[in-house]
């Protein structure tokens, strides 16, 4: 277990700068997620933490000790790969025992002790009956468990995971997610978890960092990231369906975004002049109702463009027409209401939580 600190870390490949300058602190025993779109540099960051690659500049500290120049085997980290990377020519037993066998001189374990450890970890992960199989004879979920077991068996200081669940089908992914959480509660090993799946990051992590183009956008608890996205990128990336981001203008006490008028006393004082801002509203704060409601307070007329059933409810993409043009907004269908494409509907935003961003810098404005 260790606290991981990354100081001004940068990595370039030739002329391309993948990580310009990253500074992060991952607390001891924390499950920390790094989330971002493909190519945001999150896997590069993980490779740097594992020691598989050298940074162009900056330092990596484990518990305050500089490990930047150390080889992977000197860092005592374990890495779970997206592709599992099981050794295909070894049985499950040999795969699990491999990290212990390699370090036999250092850890001084004899054959029997290694076998005991293999039995302990395989029991823990429910692999007892599969020990003599080869990786190719296992299902995806079983391979995933073997990969986890191989990482766990050494009790590393830091656990690194590179999209470990993204090759599993949706059902298995949900149950493995719960299992990872359980494992973490039990072992309390500092874990850095890289994913492109924002749902995974929000549900799994103690804290998370949102990464884009190699730059840290925001670091916080999942709840905070969702409730108070720090900039336009985080607002649009975290949460599904993505947050509605509308150009808006302050008009007296209220805010006008296309045909929608947002009233509320929560508008920060710096908006009291006719300034353009980006207003962000979560789709779940917007209700799509039958057309009869048009004309009621706060209801705006619109035409359905897309519907996306989500099981319990339905996300509806609606085009709102007004004199200045078309505004597209995503909302949730009212309970029991099943709109169809090209239907005329009413869109109601009753005092939603509005996130305001500066359109030029993308930064969050005020505390609304």
């Amino acid at each position, binding site marked *: 277990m260790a606290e991981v600190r990354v100081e001004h870390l940068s990595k370039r490949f030739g002329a391309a700068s993948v990580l310009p300058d990253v500074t992060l602190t991952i607390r001891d025993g924390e499950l920390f997620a790094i989330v971002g779109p493909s190519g945001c540099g999150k896997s590069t960051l993980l*490779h740097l933490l*594992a*020691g*598989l690659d*050298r940074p162009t500049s900056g330092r990596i500290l484990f518990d305050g000790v500089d490990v930047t120049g150390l*080889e*992977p*085997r000197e860092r005592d*980290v*374990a*890495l779970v*790969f*997206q*592709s*599992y*990377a*099981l*050794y*295909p*020519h070894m049985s499950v037993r040999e795969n699990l025992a*491999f*990290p212990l066998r*390699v*370090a036999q001189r250092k850890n001084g374990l004899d054959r029997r002790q290694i076998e005991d450890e293999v039995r302990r970890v395989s029991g823990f992960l429910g692999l007892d009956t599969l020990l003599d199989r*080869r*990786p*190719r*004879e*296992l299902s*995806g979920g079983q*391979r995933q468990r073997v990969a986890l077991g*191989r990482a766990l068996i*050494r009790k590393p200081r830091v656990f690194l995971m590179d999209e470990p669940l993204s*090759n599993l089908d949706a059902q298995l992914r949900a149950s493995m997610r719960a299992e990872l959480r359980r494992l973490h509660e039990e072992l309390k090993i500092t874990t850095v978890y890289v994913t492109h799946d924002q749902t995974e990051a929000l549900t799994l992590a103690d804290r998370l960092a949102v990464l884009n183009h190699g730059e840290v956008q925001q670091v916080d608890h999942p709840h905070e990231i969702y409730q108070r996205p720090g900039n336009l990128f985080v607002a649009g990336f975290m949460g599904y369906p993505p947050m509605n981001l509308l150009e808006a203008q302050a008009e007296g006490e209220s805010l006008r975004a296309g045909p929608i008028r947002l009233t509320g006393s929560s508008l920060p004082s710096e908006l009291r002049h006719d300034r353009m801002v980006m207003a962000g509203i979560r789709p779940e704060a917007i209700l799509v109702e039958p057309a009869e409601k048009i004309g009621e307070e706060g209801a705006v007329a619109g035409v359905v463009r897309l519907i996306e059933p989500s099981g319990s409810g339905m996300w509806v993409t609606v085009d709102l027409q007004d004199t200045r043009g078309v505004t597209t907004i995503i909302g949730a269908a009212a309970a029991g209401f099943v709109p169809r494409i090209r239907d005329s509907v009413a869109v109601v935003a009753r005092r939603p939580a509005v996130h305001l961003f500066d359109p030029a810098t993308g930064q969050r404005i005020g505390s609304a």
Partner: protein
Amino acid sequence: MRDAEGHGKFGGVGSLRNAGLRFCLLVSVGLFCLGPVLWQAVTSVKPDQDLVRLPPIWPDHATGSHYERVLLESPLAQSLANSAIVAASATTVAVVVGSFCAFALARLPIAGKPVILGLVLATSMFPPIAVISPLYLLMRALGLRDTLVAVGLTHAVYALPLAVWLLTSVFRQLPSELYYAARVDGCTPLRALLTVLLPLARPGLAVAALLVFIFSWNEFMFALTLTASDSTRTAPVAVALFPGLYEIPWGDLAAASLLVTLPVAGLAVLFQRHIVAGLTAGSVKG
């Protein structure tokens, strides 16, 4: 569905015709390639008096006298043993050295890899005849003239670029995650190579070994130049020295050629089993 069945029927007739065509094509290509070998096989069992007459194509009775003569009365047996020693050691050296070299080029952070690979390839571009006299002088200076070491070493060096190129691409095709996993699990690069990469590269190693072995077994010019006595001559050289001053012993020559060819052909068949893809199946998504 019905449509698909209809296609299936037509496909059946078409594939039957295709099969016939394919069969004819394969037979003619096979005859074209193996014809000379067949001719040689027939020659090797013809009695001496039938050798220079065209009818009969097929001899009335086969004789083993040619084989007897080349194996018992000529130094061919010794030469075959020499060839085996030379080819085996050249193969070992080229594959071992080639593996290390290829691993470094495929996985380790080295600057200028394309340049190194280019230079390696360039060395094999020299025709043997261009390097043969300096090589002869070098071997003589080293006191290795007329030894198996000289021939084996030359073959290993000459086959090394091939081995390096082949194995580099073999190592590159192995998923890089496997190497990384081994490194994180505590391996030094060398240990990762020995415990993870080499076992997985076995099919590629087999191909490289086979190619080097065949090259060394068949190589003629270096072997001819660097050896001078029956005790060091390799098989191709020995066969080439068969013709006497006044007569060419066609039957003996055919028998000897077949004996020299057979081990290599046998190896190719044997190794074919190892040259199967899919050894890495199951290690990554799939």
